């Protein structure tokens, strides 16, 4: 079961999730929305891979397909060497203990009629890990780990603040001792001061339990704080994947550059005339031919060739992947960031 420490814990290869567009109650598909379209990446043990992109780019759908919460249309998912898509119900349930999910909205992800203790305990019962006083102990430990006193076990969600609810959400995931945590926008619903508490908590837990994170976010400032590597999604595809420092300092893709330029800086002296990216993501039912970013792309190198092929995600420099036919391959660049990624 234990793979070598350098092998990726999680790998997606050419993963696609297509949803049918139907009409009427018994309608047959009129077409398909390619929510996720040929996505490949790996997550190494102990690292945080951030999945960033605007709404509708396919971040959450990718994560849900990875955890097999929704069926993938095609492609492979492996977790610690196990083919996740091929698993039957019982082994899948066993595997799910090892991969947990922290949701965006701590208001709607907790059952209002259950106490915090019951909510945290649920995973222990589902996975038959503990019951009785052993379960009580583990619930108490999990609450303590997330910074909540044991008496929180008797409270109901409505008695808690947003930050406290999110701590409960994290305790629920943590109590079954997972290795891999998918954090889907875990702080975007929280106030700034509380956001910092939760980000710090997630980083402490990662260090203490050697957790591996897939961190989904649209807020690039938060991503800069937490990520080891960053995958940028646009219109169902990964368009750039790189170590965090490289991506923030020297993005290869015009889209990533535009995304970074759109981030507002909390400094009135740095007020800039933003290089505003025109337009919005294309309609998912009518994708443009070739590169999906072509209609908005501000890059002077773009030409008709961009509209003829869907650009593949290629390694342009060691560890740095980009999906742009105009970006040359420069394998000698950035030697300080060796690739932890096999070729996707």
């Amino acid at each position: 079961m234990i793979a070598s420490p350098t092998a990726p814990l999680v790998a997606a290869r050419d993963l696609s999730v297509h949803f049918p567009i139907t009409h009427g109650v018994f309608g047959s598909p009129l077409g398909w929305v390619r929510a996720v379209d040929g996505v490949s990446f790996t997550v190494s043990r102990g690292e945080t891979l951030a999945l960033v992109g605007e709404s509708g780019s396919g971040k959450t759908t990718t994560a849900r397909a990875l955890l097999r919460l929704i069926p993938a249309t095609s492609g492979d998912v492996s977790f610690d060497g196990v083919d996740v898509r091929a698993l039957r119900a019982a082994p899948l349930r066993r595997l799910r203990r090892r991969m947990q999910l922290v949701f965006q909205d701590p208001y709607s992800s907790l059952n209002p009629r259950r106490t915090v203790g019951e909510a945290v305990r649920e995973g222990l019962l589902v996975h038959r890990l503990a019951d009785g006083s052993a379960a009580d102990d583990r619930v108490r430990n999990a609450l303590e780990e997330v910074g909540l006193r044991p008496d929180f076990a008797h409270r109901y969600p409505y008695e808690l603040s947003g930050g406290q609810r999110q701590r409960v959400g994290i305790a629920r995931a943590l109590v079954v001792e997972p290795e891999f945590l998918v954090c889907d926008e875990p702080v975007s619903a929280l106030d700034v001061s509380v956001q910092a508490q939760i980000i710090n908590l997630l980083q402490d837990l990662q260090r203490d339990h050697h957790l591996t994170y897939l961190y989904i976010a649209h807020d690039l400032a938060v991503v800069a704080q937490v990520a080891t590597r960053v995958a940028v999604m646009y219109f169902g595809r990964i368009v750039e994947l790189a170590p965090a420092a490289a991506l923030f300092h020297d993005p290869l893709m015009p889209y990533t550059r535009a995304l970074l330029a759109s981030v507002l800086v909390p400094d009135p002296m740095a007020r800039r005339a933003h290089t505003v990216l025109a337009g919005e993501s294309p309609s998912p039912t009518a994708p443009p031919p070739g590169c999906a970013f072509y209609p908005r792309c501000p890059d002077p190198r773009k030409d008709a060739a961009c509209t003829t092929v869907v650009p593949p995600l290629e390694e342009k420099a060691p560890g740095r992947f980009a999906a742009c036919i105009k970006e040359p391959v420069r394998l000698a660049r950035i030697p300080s960031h060796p690739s932890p990624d096999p070729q996707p």
Partner: protein
Amino acid sequence: MTGATPPLLSIRDLRIVFATAAGPARAVDGVTLAVYPGETVGIVGESGSGKSVMALSILRLIRPPGRIEPGSSVTFDGLDLVSCDVTSLRAIRGRRIGMVFQEPMTALNPVFTVGDQIAEVIRVHEPTTNAAAWARAVAMLRAVGVPAAADRARQYPHELSGGTRQRVMLAMALVLRPGLLIADEPTTALDVTVQAQILALLADLQQEMGMAVLLITHDLAIVATVASRVIVMYGGQAVEEAPVEELFAAAHHPYTEGLLRAIPRPDPESGRAGRLAVIPGTVPPATAWPSGCRFHDRCPFAWDRCRDEMPPLYALSATHASRCHLAAEPARRTAPRAGEMAHTEPRS
């Protein structure tokens, strides 16, 4: 900013109370502020600070069980909006003060085309023909950067993207060229690239129309980008007020300092290794504000005076004010910042 020009909007000692099962909630508790013609004032606060309730109350949009307490005053261009009759208020709403909200889908009527909804604003306030109102609606849609405006005007809100809907909201709010725009989290629901578009558009329109903007947000980066003056709210009160450069360079109130330190900066080399500074604890509920300074139990400098005596808004200069006793006893700031590293929530 001050000088001879009278303020366009002047709020004095505004108090708004909601009757709740847990007792009266003092959502806004004695806020005083002024907005001068053409300037952009940012109101920053976390949820529960009272910033949105305050915005709604300017146009008397507070419904029972909420009410504006006697003694509160909101004056717009000489007219007292708290006590004036409904007819005068309607002449102000939408015509001289425009408003945009966070969620454009809930603010737009789903069964009318967006063109009809913009044209209606014109027809309600001005004698005009349907055709003329429609033509102005389309022109306004064009002015807020909606491509193919004539076609878009005939569409319903659900047919539009989030960014376009927010442009429609701006078109509705600005079509009568109001002197003041109240914008409550106008870009919070939008993607970053679209947010940048909307803020740039707002700045352009503001300059062209000479309009004042009261921008309510939780996002300090937005304030840093667009505001000239900032008011920080906490516990239903204004706790600090300063020109934007001064607030970011030399914040005085420990709450403002804490907020500024808690923001992740989009630079991985300053981040990753270090931990974010946090403000321990959470915003207290409006039914149970702490005694004295409302921030005292989360403040790293608090001493007994802070618990016993509510600080007034101390004037630090002609333009900078802070509701913190440190203004009177600056030596106390050297106390160890014990609270800073705490990341648990001590009390609920």
